[in-house]
């Protein structure tokens, strides 16, 4: 595309600017991501040659970061599709433009989830056994089936919501005519009747995608939750908890994608849409907190040995930083940021943050108030924090939220993006703590397990993230990420 064309498009069709414009920063990001992916391919060649020996997984922690990320990305994907379905069926014109970005996110996240499963297999070249020898008593086989159905629906959804815009692009960007023609699969009719049919199909697909997304992520939960061998997973609440986590993280992911593409890719997204999505997000976060609390209370009140050791490890043991990151920075802080209460309310809310944080530090040593003593039948560990740790906690729990809340910068869409990113990271932490601690503890008297991912594993995880980001920045130059205005 020559320079005159770019100028013309920018002048006449500001909607398409993000498709044709690519500055130095764009190519820098592209090069950076490619470098990470390249390094990942090298790391994988090592894992391929030497087997899973190069990872930190071991006996008894048979699953590690790969499965954590698999669960996380399936959740993001299901959540993304639920947001898209909302956009297509709720009848709210305002949200229609975000449907496509949610679908694109959902499809990419599912592909990342598939990559993580392949990374985890000891014999990846035998993946086709899952088709030829599928055994349907296994939740993993259910997963394979539902992923197929779900992917088909998600891709059809993406196709029908993009087709009309692709036809428009064919006319507006003659130099890429062939590409867009290919992407429309040759169906280029944009008569009102054809568009009306698209809309009807889209609505039907959107409705079908809701149960598909719910089943997709429930099956992922059941891969863990149906195992009686693992206290900490074996819970009826796991699937509903996964659905709520998926919806919250999916919505947050869409917000992050909108904010990023608005800021760095020049995609035109109305500020009002982001503000409204932020308002919805703030109401969904407490639901997730409630589910986590219900699960914890049930385990702690019963105080059974096996699940208690798991939760002990998770809340006050080696996984405590991840757990409290999830609760404090992934749930509480985003609510404060998005809700933006008056300063004194904010301070009042920061107090529970501080209390909770010091409880972590003390490992519950002194902090159980007398009326609650009967609630905690289990002896908790002893750990005395130093004044240094107290200062750090105080900083984290009071100063940081207060500072963030009073900074005008955070009242913009960027602030919403930061809050949403925290929510996404919080859910990743939650996934880590759902998957890993139950693997450390076995029923029989084995020595307790431990798990520390190796550099190869971390590189492969980051490289897979980079694949996702790469797909996003490239597709952002091909597809109009938000719907074009008519005409």
């Amino acid at each position: 595309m020559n320079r005159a064309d770019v100028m013309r498009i920018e002048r006449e069709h500001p909607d398409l600017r993000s498709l044709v414009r690519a500055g130095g920063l764009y190519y820098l990001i592209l090069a950076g991501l490619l470098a990470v992916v390249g390094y990942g391919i090298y790391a994988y060649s090592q894992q391929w040659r030497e087997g899973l020996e190069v990872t930190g997984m071991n006996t008894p922690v048979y699953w590690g970061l790969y499965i954590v990320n698999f669960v996380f990305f399936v959740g993001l994907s299901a959540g993304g599709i639920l947001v898209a379905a909302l956009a297509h069926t709720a009848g709210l014109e305002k949200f229609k433009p975000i449907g496509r970005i949610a679908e694109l996110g959902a499809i990419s996240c599912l592909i990342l989830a598939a990559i993580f499963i392949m990374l985890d297999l000891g014999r990846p070249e035998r993946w086709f056994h899952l088709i030829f020898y599928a055994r349907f008593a296994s939740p993993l086989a259910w997963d394979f089936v539902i992923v197929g159905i779900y992917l088909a629906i998600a891709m059809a959804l993406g196709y029908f919501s993009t087709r009309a815009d692709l036809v428009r692009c064919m006319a507006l960007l003659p130099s890429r005519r062939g590409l867009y023609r290919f992407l429309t699969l040759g169906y280029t009719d944009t008569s009102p009747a054809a568009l009306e049919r698209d809309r009807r199909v889209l609505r039907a697909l959107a409705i079908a995608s809701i149960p598909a997304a719910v089943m997709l992520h429930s099956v992922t939960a059941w891969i863990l939750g149906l195992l009686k061998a693992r206290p900490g997973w074996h819970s009826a609440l796991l699937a509903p908890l996964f659905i709520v986590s998926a919806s919250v993280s999916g919505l947050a992911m869409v917000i992050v994608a909108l904010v990023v593409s608005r800021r760095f890719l020049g995609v035109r997204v109305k500020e009002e849409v982001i503000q409204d999505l932020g308002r919805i997000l703030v109401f969904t976060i407490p639901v997730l907190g409630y589910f986590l609390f219900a699960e914890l209370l049930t385990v702690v009140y019963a105080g059974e040995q096996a699940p208690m050791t798991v939760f002990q490890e998770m809340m006050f043991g080696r996984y405590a930083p991840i757990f409290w990151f999830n609760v404090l920075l992934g749930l509480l802080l985003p609510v404060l940021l998005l809700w933006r209460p008056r300063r004194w309310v904010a301070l009042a809310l920061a107090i529970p943050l501080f209390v909770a944080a010091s409880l972590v530090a003390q490992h519950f040593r002194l902090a159980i108030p007398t009326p609650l003593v009967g609630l905690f039948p289990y002896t908790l560990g002893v750990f005395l924090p130093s004044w240094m740790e107290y200062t750090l906690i105080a900083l984290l729990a009071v100063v940081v939220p207060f500072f963030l809340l009073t900074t005008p910068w955070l009242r913009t869409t960027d602030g919403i993006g930061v809050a949403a990113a925290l929510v996404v990271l919080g859910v990743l932490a939650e996934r880590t703590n759902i998957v890993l601690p139950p693997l450390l503890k076995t029923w029989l008297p084995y020595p307790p397990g431990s798990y520390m991912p190796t550099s190869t594993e971390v590189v492969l995880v980051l490289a897979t993230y980079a694949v996702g980001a790469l797909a996003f920045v490239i597709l952002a130059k091909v597809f109009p990420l938000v719907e074009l205005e008519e005409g």
Partner: protein
Amino acid sequence: MPRWGMIIDLDRCTACQACTVACKEENNQPVAGRERSQRGRDIFWMHVLLTVDGEYPRVRARFLPRPCQHCDAPPCVQVCPVGATTKRVDGPVAQNDERCIGCRYCMVACPYGVRAFNWKAPAFETTQYLNPDVPVRPVGVVEKCTFCIHRIEKAVERAKAEGRALRDGEVQTACMQTCTGGAIVFGDLDDPNSRVSRLTRDRRAFHLLEELATHPRVTYLAEG
């Protein structure tokens, strides 16, 4: 068709771990070495677990030899997505390492932790002493105790060739054969007069993690 089962008498176990060694030799399990062992890379089909109750001087150590329990309701078979692990009609839970994709779901699902993974390609100091009756498993697949299925099959063939029924005690697993205290008994649970059948009805008999309803084929006799 016999129904194979095992008795482990904890009163007779001295925790000498000869069963672990015999099992490793018999079934071509590679040795991890000290460094890899610390990273949780061991392969033990038979493992003697240790618990210590109390503190010195009032202390008691308990030992628990732990082969695969060969459950009648095996959680590992239930979850395998490709049918690489199966329950044989004569009892053992078998593992097909040509079929296994290495997802390790069975290991996660097993409450007894009896399964082992080939984190890397097996290496032996010399292949001279490998047991020709047992295939060496490749990298990236799960493996486990087979109830010495190759010995069972040999004995069954021999009895058939000689046109007679199997005698009680004719099939011995490697761990049983080597057990210094005679704690391990292997045999046919369908034969009411076999030693293993009689001991299963002993007052001291119990199963590991009975509450999980996996119905193990390995019965323990409690310490008296």
